[in-house]
């Protein structure tokens, strides 16, 4: 038995050694990319968007950004790298509001001179709150600052040590969520009409058209923020993609009485985006071969990686040949809107009944 004074000394030394070891382990593996790119020949693994996006923007090399929600997560960004001769970082926020995505994008602009922004624009982004939610009292502050002094909870964190680092190592060795497949969640997921239909109980009643005038200021504010972002970075080229939701989503829009609101948003966003010189717009929602075939989906909105690839190929082909059937310009915008209206009419009168009883 040691004397108490000596015991205290030993105890202090043991604690100090253990704490230093923890600091070192977390620093070297750094699964949230707070300090550096992976060491020891490990691959860059992106498997947890909530904790990795902020750090990856600060410390990983890139000159372009693939921005969006889970609708864009399964895109193979290495395809974009090859086609556009760039290095793309995926910046994803699950169910992300417009402002959260813009917050991330602004961080990326402060770190790099961005060549391209490939932006999957969801409809709900236009009606989302314009307050940043990713940085809040509920999110760990250390994720969003480069200041090592607030990293205590990163280094002394059981989840980081026992969950994130082992996952990071395992995924790196197994080549999961690496290269262009960061955050890709499609592996092991079931797609097909039967699975997708589990997500939607078609209402038997159709609500009357809802009054959306109260939403207009928010929609306009979100559109202004997007326009302001694009205008304030004239050297960056923006590819804006409207991802194709399934016919179930459009039927849901109809039965909830929100059709007019969606077409209002379509008019407004197109009017705002098309005049911008550094923005190209691609609209996939009117393609009946995609949206009316539920085998492409796992729920109302999420589609197979093949659809992600189709979207990327479409913009790459436009880049290469100057043509994409999905490209929207001031010349064809009315035709595309008309197509969408007809598709919508078709879905609510016929398309949906190929899967659901009348």
């Amino acid at each position, binding site marked *: *038995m*040691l*004397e*108490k*004074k000596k*015991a*205290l000394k*030993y*105890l202090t030394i*043991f*604690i100090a*050694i*253990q*704490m230093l070891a*923890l600091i070192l382990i977390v620093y070297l593996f750094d699964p949230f990319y707070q300090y550096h790119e992976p060491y020891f020949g490990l691959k860059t693994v992106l498997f947890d968007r909530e904790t990795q996006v902020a750090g990856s923007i600060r410390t990983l090399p890139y000159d372009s950004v693939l921005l969006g929600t889970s609708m864009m997560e399964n895109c193979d960004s290495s395809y974009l790298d090859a086609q556009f001769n760039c290095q793309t970082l995926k910046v994803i926020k699950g169910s992300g509001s417009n402002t959260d995505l813009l917050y991330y994008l602004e961080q990326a602009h402060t770190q790099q001179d961005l060549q391209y922004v490939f932006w999957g624009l969801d409809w709900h982004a236009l009606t989302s709150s314009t307050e940043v939610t990713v940085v809040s009292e509920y999110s760990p502050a250390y994720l969003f600052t480069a200041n090592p002094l607030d990293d*205590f*909870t990163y280094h*002394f*964190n*059981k*989840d*980081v*040590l*026992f*969950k994130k680092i*082992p*996952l990071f190592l*395992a995924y790196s060795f197994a080549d999961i969520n690496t290269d262009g497949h960061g955050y890709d969640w499609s592996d092991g997921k079931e797609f097909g009409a039967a699975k997708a239909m589990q997500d939607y109980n078609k209402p038997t009643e159709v609500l009357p058209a809802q009054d959306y005038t109260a939403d207009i200021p928010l929609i306009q504010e979100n559109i202004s923020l997007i326009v302001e972002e694009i205008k304030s970075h004239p050297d960056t080229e923006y590819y804006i993609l409207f991802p194709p939701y399934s016919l179930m989503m459009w039927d849901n829009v109809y039965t909830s009485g929100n059709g007019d609101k969606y077409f209002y948003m379509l008019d407004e966003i197109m009017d705002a985006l098309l005049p911008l010189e550094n923005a190209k717009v691609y609209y996939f929602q009117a393609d009946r071969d995609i949206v009316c075939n539920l085998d492409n989906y796992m729920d109302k909105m999420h589609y197979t990686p093949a659809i992600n690839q189709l979207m990327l190929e479409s913009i790459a082909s436009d880049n290469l040949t100057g043509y994409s059937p999905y490209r929207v310009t001031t010349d064809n915008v009315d035709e595309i809107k008309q197509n969408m209206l007809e598709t919508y009419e078709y879905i609510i009168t016929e398309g949906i009944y190929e899967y659901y009883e009348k």
Partner: protein
Amino acid sequence: MLFNSVIFIMVFLPLTLLGFFSLQQLKNPIYAKLFLTGASLFFYGYYNPWYLLLLGGSLLCNHGCSKLFELCKGQKSRRLVLIAGLFVNLGILFYFKYFNFFIDNCNMLLHTDWNIEKIALPLGISFFTFQQISYVVDRYRNDAPYYSLLDYACFITFFPQLIAGPIVLHSEFVPQLAARKNRKPDAEKFFDGFSLFILGLGKKVLLADVLARPVNAAFDDINIIRYYIDFPTGWLIILFYAFELYFDFSGYCDMARGISKMFGFELPINFDSPFKSETITEFWRRWHITLSRFLTTYIYIPLGGNRRGTAIRCRNTLIVFFISGIWHGASWNFIFWGLFHGFGMITENLFPKLRLPWAWLRKVVTFLFFTLSMVLFRSDSLQTAGLYLKRMFTADITPYLSRLGNSLQLPETFAITKLLQLKAPELVEPFNLVVFALLFIISCILIAGPKAEEWLCKKGRTRRGLFLLATIFTWSLISLSQVSTFLYFNF
């Protein structure tokens, strides 16, 4: 502020210790006391500064009573002061803790529809109120001297015991404030305190919080109780809750005592291996000792204790346990929980011949009695408790046992679970059950083993023991990324 938080362990505690001992070096101890009181108030008001008004008001009223006892010499006037002091203390407690309960019961009995906003329960109100009642009563009985406002404030607000006890008597604490030997930092006391704090932290963070997972998973969803709880899972979960409550509260008390020792003060022991008790009477001499002491000194004995025959003794016991029950919370569950223990103790005392022949069996029966009472303690209503008890004794067997291990979801076992999910998914549930069983065995070993301080005396100063202590500290520290509160904060 919570003891089990990074801000407390890494910032508040070191800075307060530093400030306190620096100021203790000055000739006049008033600065150190002022600093300690200020730090305690900061600790208390960290989450809700408005509670400081209540604490301050209560403290000033009771100190005012003490002053009045100094001025009033006649028995009548002293009695009036006592009544006024008790009225203020019990009034505050009634309003903040029991008013909602009172209104709900009035509505139920009188078929009225009085609606009042839910009154938030200020932290530790039951603890500091009881502490002050004891001082006022002792002053009335001339068993306590008059203390200066600063000494009194320092005693009542002393942060290690402010929120969840132990319920310290003035005579145990205030004299220590004046003792000269406490004015210099003492490495030996610091080691005793720090090592006890570490063991308490480990009990809370590494055991109680983990045991809470399957317990909360069951009790937070009435449908799980209704459809899934069966004989084995019902008993296992409630056993886990008994362990959780013990590790949670005794862990808190170890931390409180440890911190006090670091400051050079001794607080009374609140737990003395209660699960080794052979009778319910003994259990209450070992569990929450300072509450039992308060209830005995200020309620049981003034009512006549056990001096006026069996009937009065039984009545007094029931009154004390009724108060103990309602002290734990404003609900019928707690009242019935208290009375259950009261009846248990009365039965034990009335029929001593029922005493079982073997000590180990008596210990097991006492433990099971306590565990069974935990159903009332943990349930959010009498209906839920009834349903749970019914399911505990049902003959149906549901598949919930195999799923119980999943509710643990420990980061420590994450890598193995993930690997099993990929390579041998059929082994995931058995593996989780093994972890569950391990946790149960560890809990049993700890409740049957030596107390924290005994272990520290025997093995705490060997190199291996010190390494273990350091590991518990570091392991607890990295477990604080998800902070939980202490169960006894609600009482």
